[in-house]
């Protein structure tokens, strides 16, 4: 940073008065490419410097020498007499190293300065760094996303962005919204990590192309493409909490135009563990079978690419007391237990056509059908939801005058049929049909240099949300070299599926109360929020190491919200319309550096200020740390053709979190007002034997921190003080795992 400022100041000074006592220059190779890191030294002195990424250098003139020595590994050293204040030096390879292939390792998490929106692309290599068996666990190494447990029963993980839970993130698979409606609570665990090719994480208001629902961000997952796939892939995983996974991909290329892959995933959790001796399973037992068959047809001459996917998934979970037996105890008060069974069927297709004579113009059609059926009970609470959805999207991309001005326009529609029943003392039927159709237009201007902007707008008609417009703006500006400023602004609107999104609360004796006031979504208003963001990032060289630092600040302002109020009474959860203000401010400061070759350090500090007007006053969002620290270290040994090692460790520190109000309970059934701060460490070691075989071992929560008392009222789970939803930390102590990956290339 400092160096850059100095350079800037210097640069300006140099513009004003030609600095006579400074030698400026550039070092290039025989292909006229800048040489980065070349050494430039006055002969027989220690006065020298190194060239920057553009091959430029600056060096004060030296009184004792006017011979400049320019050298770089693999090039012939040049010694040049200097008589001017600017010099261009060309280095020629010295032939001895002609055979060496220089390759730069591509980072697995790319924070590119190119995209207009604040987007980070996580490659599949990033996903290999954690135990990561499914999408919900794949963000452990991403500082922008916080991963938390949602309750003490289902074992599911909840992600947050800008401090807001996943319903406020538009989660899409290949740009088709996927985790929505009924799948909101567990949907992320329905995509196995090995199927993923890459994940794009966008902070703040997203693009209008995929819909109007995103408020805090967008996460889009791209699955592996059959055309680029390898013939066979196998991954086996086992862990000390008795979780076993098997992933197998079989790919067949039927011709140069047609390929298919079968993805088969199975997992089992067998272990009944109760490490904290509260009588409840620390993690659920269960199993999942998940099968996807994906086809890709590609005809380059005609400019056609198309995909067709069929998927079936069956997921079973059982949690609750150790002695609970579903066959004899379901629906009784013998023991408290819970089962969540989900079946999913997805069929989707996509056709893209690029106009052969106008490569910048294309048209695409996506159609998806989705069936989701969840039957579940939590003690005596029973919750069933079935969702049939159809989604379609037609997009036309082209340019205005030239490719600096691009636009995308199109229409999309969605239809959802919900059969939803909640049994709590009595049965309530929340079945409904939702449909919406909308048109969008997005214009992108990019001057290919230092400025780009995306202006997007949508107009939607929905039976539940009415007729409304969604504006979104993203802009990017490069004020000086290697720096980027981004700003975004947008509006999001959504129908909160209050039960599906808050299933963790079923694991309590809370009564579900909906304070209806005539709205069209469960009797409440649709949620509306505005999101504003500003970010800055600067790449620089620190002691000769590549580094970058930056910050981003986002504010989300709710004008309407379906407030989930667990502070009114420990025996109730009240869903009510926002009456007052509700906002989420988040600040993230990052610093990343490559300490030595192959050793990367990522650090982030996050500050969250999230407040909502509840019945009992304006309070901090419960179960949300105000301050968080994230540190990730990765190291890879050099590969000399006989394999290499990869090491990865992540440290998270979470400050105290406000716990929901329990002061009205008897003394021994209360939580303190705030949790204690805690930290956790995850680490993994991978031995890569060859391109086709690797073995990994790792540990999660190695500091062995456990939430001291996860469940209130655990001795009387059918009593009025029972609550297993107030989870702020890990339940399971240390967990170790091992696995292997085999690729048939």
């Amino acid at each position, binding site marked *: 940073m400092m160096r850059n400022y100095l350079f800037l100041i210097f640069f300006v000074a140099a513009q004003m008065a030609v600095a006579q006592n400074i030698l400026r220059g*550039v070092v290039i190779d025989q*292909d*006229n490419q800048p040489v980065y890191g070349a050494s430039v030294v006055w002969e027989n002195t220690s006065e020298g410097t190194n060239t920057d990424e553009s091959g430029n250098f600056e060096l004060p003139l030296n009184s004792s020498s006017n011979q400049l020595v320019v050298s770089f590994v693999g090039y012939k050293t040049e010694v040049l007499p200097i008589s001017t204040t600017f010099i*261009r030096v060309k280095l020629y390879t010295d032939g001895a190293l002609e055979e060496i292939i220089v390759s730069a390792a591509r980072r697995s998490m790319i924070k590119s300065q190119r995209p207009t929106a604040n987007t980070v692309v996580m490659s599949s290599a990033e996903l290999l760094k954690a135990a990561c068996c499914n999408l919900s666990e794949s963000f452990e190494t991403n500082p922008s996303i916080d991963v938390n447990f949602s309750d003490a029963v289902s074992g599911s993980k909840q992600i947050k962005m800008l401090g807001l839970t996943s319903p406020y993130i538009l989660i899409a698979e290949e740009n088709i919204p996927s985790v929505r409606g009924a799948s909101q609570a567990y949907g992320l665990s329905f995509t196995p990590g090995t199927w993923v090719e890459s994940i794009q994480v966008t902070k703040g208001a997203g693009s209008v192309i995929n819909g109007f629902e995103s408020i805090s961000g967008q996460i889009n997952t791209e699955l592996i493409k059959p055309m680029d796939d390898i013939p066979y892939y196998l991954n086996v995983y086992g862990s000390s909490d008795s979780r076993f996974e098997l992933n197998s991909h079989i790919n067949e290329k039927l011709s140069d135009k047609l390929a298919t892959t079968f993805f088969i995933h199975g997992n089992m959790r067998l272990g009944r563990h109760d490490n904290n001796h509260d009588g409840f399973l620390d993690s659920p037992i269960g199993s999942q079978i998940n099968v996807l068959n994906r086809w890709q047809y590609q005809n380059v001459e005609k400019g056609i690419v198309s995909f067709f996917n069929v998927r079936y998934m069956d997921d079973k979970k059982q949690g609750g007391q150790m002695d609970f037996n579903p066959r004899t105890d379901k629906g009784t008060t013998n023991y408290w237990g819970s089962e969540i069974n989900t079946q999913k069927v997805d069929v989707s297709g996509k056709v*893209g056509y690029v106009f052969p004579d106008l490569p*910048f113009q294309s048209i695409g059609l*996506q159609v998806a059908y989705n069936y989701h059926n969840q039957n579940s009970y939590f003690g005596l609470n029973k919750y069933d939801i079935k969702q049939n959805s159809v989604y379609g*999207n037609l997009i036309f991309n082209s340019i205005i005058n030239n490719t600096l001005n691009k636009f995308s326009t*199109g229409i999309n529609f969605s239809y959802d049929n919900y059969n939803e029943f909640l049994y709590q003392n009595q049965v309530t039927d929340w079945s409904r049909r939702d449909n919406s159709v909308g048109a969008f237009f997005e214009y992108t201007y990019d001057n*290919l240099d230092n400025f780009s902007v995306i202006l997007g707008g949508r107009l939607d008609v929905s039976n539940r949300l009415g007729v409304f417009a969604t504006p979104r703006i993203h802009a990017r500006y490069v004020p000086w070299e290697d720096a980027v400023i981004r700003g975004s602004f947008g509006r999001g609107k959504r129908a909160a599926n209050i039960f599906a999104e808050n299933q963790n609360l079923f694991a309590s004796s809370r009564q579900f109360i909906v304070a209806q006031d005539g709205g069209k979504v469960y009797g409440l208003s649709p949620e509306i929020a505005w999101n504003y963001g500003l970010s800055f990032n600067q790449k620089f060289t620190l002691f000769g190491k590549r580094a970058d630092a930056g910050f981003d600040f986002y504010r989300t302002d709710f004008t309407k919200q379906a407030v989930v109020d667990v502070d009114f009474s420990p025996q109730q959860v009240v869903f009510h319309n926002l009456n007052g203000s509700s906002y989420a401010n988040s600040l993230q400061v990052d610093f990343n550096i490559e300490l030595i070759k192959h050793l990367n350090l990522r650090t982030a500090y996050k500050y969250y200020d999230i407040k909502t007007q509840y019945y009992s006053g304006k309070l901090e969002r419960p179960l949300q740390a105000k301050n968080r620290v994230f540190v990730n270290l990765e190291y890879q040994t050099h590969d000399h053709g006989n394999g290499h090692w990869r090491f990865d460790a992540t440290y998270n520190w979470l400050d105290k979190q406000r716990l929901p109000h329990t002061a009205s309970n008897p003394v021994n059934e209360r939580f303190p007002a705030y949790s204690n701060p805690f930290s956790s460490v995850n680490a993994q070691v991978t031995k890569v034997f060859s391109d086709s075989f690797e073995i990994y071992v790792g540990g999660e929560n190695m500091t062995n921190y456990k939430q001291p008392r996860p469940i209130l009222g655990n001795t009387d789970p059918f009593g009025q003080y029972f609550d297993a939803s107030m989870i702020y930390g890990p339940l399971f102590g240390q967990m170790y795992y091992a696995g292997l990956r085999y690729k048939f290339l």
Partner: protein
Amino acid sequence: MKKILLLALLTFFGLQAHAQDAKSVSKTHGKYDIEVKGNCNMCKKRIEKAAYSVNGVRSAEWHADDQTLHVMLNDKKATPLQVQQAVAAQGHDTKFNNKDVKATPTDYENLHGCCLYERE
């Protein structure tokens, strides 16, 4: 939509475009490969910007490795020669169909240090 897909396809088309030289791809649009001398990314920005300044240029991409500017333009509105002139005015020597359009010495010397390519 599928930006990635589009990119992949564009790459394919790019490869195809390599195979054809200055071939009209439709009634109105033609693709041309103009030789343009330059060094670095800074040159790339300058060259492409200059090409885009010509009305009728649809897309322009310069690659340092083969010293070639790939342009696609509307043949009714623009000619490769106009693109050559616009690029040369920014200091970069050009060549298309054995016709040289060179930068003036002043324009060449005004280039940033790292862009001072070797002139023939």
